[in-house]
């Protein structure tokens, strides 16, 4: 109790002492600054919101404004204020004056530290209050989308603000200790500023540390949503608390005894106390910082929920290689739950919600994964939790730009394979190291099998670049064979050419087939080389899967029915497992059905006046079809070309139809009304059926039918290409 009174007395005295220093004003100003700046920006640039889902407007506004705050200005504020409040006493003997007052040193040390913390709280509260005010101000100037929630998100703000406060404790304790220890104002600022800048510059290079005080603070905006697992705080915030306590102990003991030796080594008891604090701190930090992995589950469970505007009846679990359905799970309300029996090799499985939405989930036997999805007409978003939390997040982290790809595009070092290989090897090492660093916001890392797979796929990516390099060299220096240098062989050792588990990944399949193509110097089409190479493999599942994939691709790319039939005749015999043969036959029939000369399947639609229309109404003229949707960017880029042709050939015997496949009819209507009248605007009546029968995998898709309603081409070139018009002219009987 006496200690509390002493502390309060010292705290009030500190507030007398800091009069006229403007410490709290500065904190408030820094807090309000960025919401204000963001508001001005928003007005000047007329900010548009592209969040497809419902979101809290004010939370987003505050978190957006907080980006420069957490990364730079808030840490800087703590550095400056720590130095400022300690300087009041470093100058003119204030510490000695305090030493000769009837107050415990504990009260004095922590009262001053409290001023730093109060400043931090003022800055955070000003940021939030400023965000509320300027966010509101901005709503008067710009249009806020209807799905933005405009009520005050009290709970989220409280959580976010408290996370920010806890995250800054470590930094504050560190900087306060430095500022008390070092009497020089300049040096304590310089040290803090140096640490801040080091953290800032290291970040873009992937050096982000969960024990670095400045990174712990900037994580508040790096991971706005906080824990994936629903915790109030994430582990780095506990790290902040643990490190802050250790630093406060060290700093206080130093302050009390004035030298390190007297503070920690003068008596065995002090040395022991230091040892105990450091040991406990180390154990605590170790426990917090040690990466965690999802435990194995007794069964294999696939469960989840989908928050979507439309009713979904079933969830389909789809094999990544064969595209066949492994399980059909009924939805109950907006949830589903299924225990899967039997062995499931860990892989990226497709999970489809009827035919509306699809996502990819990495899991296998004895994993329990929970998919939380949000979807609407424009977009869908899925998050995977459970035993493969980190694996699925890491899987979505795509390797971005790399300099080797740039060298290759620029044809650099073609004359120096050794140098190219060395650079490639170095870059591969770097990427591999970075991939191992992945952790979720809750400190979960992917499991070993996933990491191994990632490493192999990274190696595959780099080896594919090498393959590209070899291919270019063959063209430029046909007489010089390119022997893989030892650097390349080192990477090759990481990837087998017969790894069945990797076959679900397209880059690996490409890599394997590339090897056959490179080895085969006969002048035949590349897919044929690949197929021929595959048939040379020892029979088994690996060959079956690879052959199935390559054959499906060739069937799709084949230009006529005879070619497809020839492919089937030649290669189906090589399938070991009849499942693959049947699947290949199915694909064959799918493509045959939309093959040249086959009758196009009947479909119905609604036009802009709401009339029922059908494909059959259009007999007697050619029909060009553009399958599109309002949410599809590439579709929107192609449609002007399509419309230009419709205008150009409006007097010819050809209909131009734009068939909308939006789920939300009103969105289609708005977009379709703005389009050229020379194109018939139709809205597909039964999208499911249409998609299945026309083998619709992606849009935009352009098709051309003849006067009798038969396919000329089920997959036309894009109308932006000349080939599109050439085909149309040819079919119309016009001269080239």
């Amino acid at each position, binding site marked *: 109790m006496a200690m509390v009174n002493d502390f309060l007395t010292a705290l009030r005295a500190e507030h007398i*002492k800091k009069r006229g220093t403007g410490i709290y004003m500065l904190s408030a100003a820094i807090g309000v600054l960025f919401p204000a700046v963001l508001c001005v920006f928003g007005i000047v640039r007329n900010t548009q919101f592209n969040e497809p889902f419902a979101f809290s407007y004010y939370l987003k506004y505050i978190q957006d404004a907080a980006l420069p705050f957490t990364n730079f200005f808030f840490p800087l504020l703590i550095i400056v204020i720590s130095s400022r409040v300690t300087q009041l006493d470093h100058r*003119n*003997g204030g510490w*000695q*004056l305090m030493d000769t*007052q*009837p107050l*415990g040193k504990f009260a004095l040390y922590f009262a001053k530290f409290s001023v730093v913390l109060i400043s931090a709280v003022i800055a955070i509260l000003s940021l939030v209050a400023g965000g509320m005010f300027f966010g509101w101000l901005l709503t008067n100037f710009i249009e806020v989308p209807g799905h933005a929630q405009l009520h005050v998100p009290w709970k989220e703000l409280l959580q976010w603000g408290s996370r920010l406060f806890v995250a800054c404790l470590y930094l504050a304790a560190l900087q306060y200790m430095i500022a008390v220890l070092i009497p020089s104002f300049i040096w304590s600022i310089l040290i803090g500023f140096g640490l801040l800048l080091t953290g800032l510059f290291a970040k873009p290079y992937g050096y982000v540390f969960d024990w670095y005080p400045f990174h712990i603070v900037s994580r508040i905006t790096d991971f706005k949503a906080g824990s994936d697992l629903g915790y109030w705080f994430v582990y780095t915030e506990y790290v902040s608390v643990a490190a802050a306590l250790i630093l406060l102990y060290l700093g206080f003991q130093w302050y009390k005894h004035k030298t390190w030796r007297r503070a920690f080594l003068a008596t065995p008891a002090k040395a022991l106390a230091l040892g105990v604090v450091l040991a406990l701190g180390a154990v605590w930090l170790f426990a917090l910082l040690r990466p965690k992995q999802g435990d194995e589950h007794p069964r294999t469970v696939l469960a989840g929920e989908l928050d979507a505007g439309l009713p979904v009846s079933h969830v389909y679990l789809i094999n990544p290689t064969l595209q066949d359905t492994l399980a059909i799970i009924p939805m109950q309300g907006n949830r589903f739950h299924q225990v899967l029996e039997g062995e499931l090799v860990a892989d990226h499985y497709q999970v489809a919600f009827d035919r509306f939405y699809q996502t990819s989930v990495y899991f296998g036997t004895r994993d329990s994964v929970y998919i939380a999805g949000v979807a609407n007409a424009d977009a869908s978003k899925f998050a995977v939790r459970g035993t493969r939390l980190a694996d699925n997040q890491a899987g979505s982290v795509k390797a971005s730009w790399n300099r080797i790809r740039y060298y290759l595009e620029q044809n650099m070092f073609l004359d120096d394979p050794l140098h190219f290989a060395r650079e490639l090897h170095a870059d591969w090492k770097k990427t591999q190291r970075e991939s191992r660093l992945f952790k979720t916001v809750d400190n979960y890392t992917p499991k070993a099998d996933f990491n191994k797979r990632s490493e192999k796929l990274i190696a595959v990516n780099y080896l594919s670049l090498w393959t590209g390099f070899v291919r270019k060299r063959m063209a430029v220096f046909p007489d010089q064979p390119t022997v893989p240098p030892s650097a390349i062989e080192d990477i090759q050792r990481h990837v087998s050419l017969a790894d069945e588990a990797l076959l679900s990944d397209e880059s690996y399949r490409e890599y394997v087939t590339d090897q056959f193509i490179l080895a085969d110097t006969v002048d035949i089409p590349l897919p044929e080389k690949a197929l021929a190479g595959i048939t040379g493999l020892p029979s088994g599942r690996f060959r079956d899967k690879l052959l199935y994939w390559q054959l499906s691709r060739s069937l799709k790319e084949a230009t006529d029915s005879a070619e497809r039939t020839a492919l089937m005749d030649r290669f189906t015999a090589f399938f070991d497992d009849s499942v693959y043969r049947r699947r290949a036959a199915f694909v064959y029939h799918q493509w045959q059905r939309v093959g040249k000369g086959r009758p196009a399947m009947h479909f119905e639609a609604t036009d802009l006046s709401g009339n029922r229309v059908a494909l059959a109404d259009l007999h007697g003229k050619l029909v060009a079809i553009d399958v599109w949707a309002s949410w599809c960017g590439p579709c929107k880029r192609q449609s002007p070309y399509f419309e230009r042709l419709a205008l150009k050939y409006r007097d010819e015997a050809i209909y131009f139809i734009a068939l909308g496949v939006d789920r939300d009819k009103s969105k289609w209507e708005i977009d379709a009304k703005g389009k050229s009248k020379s194109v018939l605007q139709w809205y597909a009546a039964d999208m499911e059926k249409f998609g299945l029968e026309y083998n619709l995998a992606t849009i935009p898709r352009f098709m051309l039918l003849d006067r009798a309603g038969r396919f000329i081409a089920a997959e036309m070139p894009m109308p932006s290409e000349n080939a599109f018009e050439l085909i149309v002219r040819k079919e119309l009987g016009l001269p080239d």
Partner: protein
Amino acid sequence: MVNIIETTALSFGYGRHKKVLDNVSLHIPEGAIYGFLGPNGAGKSTTMRLLTGIIPEQGNAIRLFGEPLRQQMPGVFSKIGSLVEQPALYLHLSGIDNLRYIARLRGVSPKRIPAMLELVGLANDGKRKVKQYSLGMKQRLAIAMALLDEPALLLLDEPVNGLDPNGIQEIRQLLMRLNRENGVTIFVSSHLLPEIEKMCTHVGIIHNGQLKFEGRMDELSARFATANIVVTLGDAVRWAERLEPLYPGLMVLHARQIRFMLPTKEAVPGMVRSLVDAGADIYELRMEGGLEDWFMSLIDTNK
């Protein structure tokens, strides 16, 4: 009588070998104005810092108010006002705010502040920023801060350093009044003997970390009460023979100079009168080996 401050063979060293204080045993009785005298670098400030706990004590030799200092930290400071080295003040604050700060830390009513400013003669300057104060004003404000809590013991390290003669006198009178009227025990350090002589009841003399003398001021005076007189006069030998029976131990220094001892300084005028009456031609008369000389010799050996 209880000693307010008592040290028992206090020693202190910064390094292993460099001893700043060596077996210093101080005894400051209640109600004393104790002058702690010594040349610069003798160990005064170190002693002062140890007494105020600014430097943690290495042993357990210091007792304040009859109890070991270590066991009373920091509560004992409610009875102590101190001023160590240069005045510790917050220059960005006004004089009043500086006092308010101390009042807050010590739980003293701020109502006492105007009276305190009056006491140190800053009644009209309380609202000014301390950075605008003269050195003397700062010193007086620091003393006001030390006095605010009406301490029983006042520790002052060179409180008149850098003040003009007028300021020095003001401070001296203030301290003597506090001691007289409030019974405050004052421990004041200085390197100036006259300063100590003028106001102290007790004195301790430190040199090279060792206490050379400690006792009442009148004891010190008594110790140097006898006066060595050196007289320059015509025909020393003749006068030596005449004076020898009166002043045993008289010495002839050379042809025109003799030295002898008087029991008290008060005997000097009579001695001079009788010599003149006897017809001596006195050219010069000088007293040797007083307190001042002794203290100066300490400083000289230090050089």
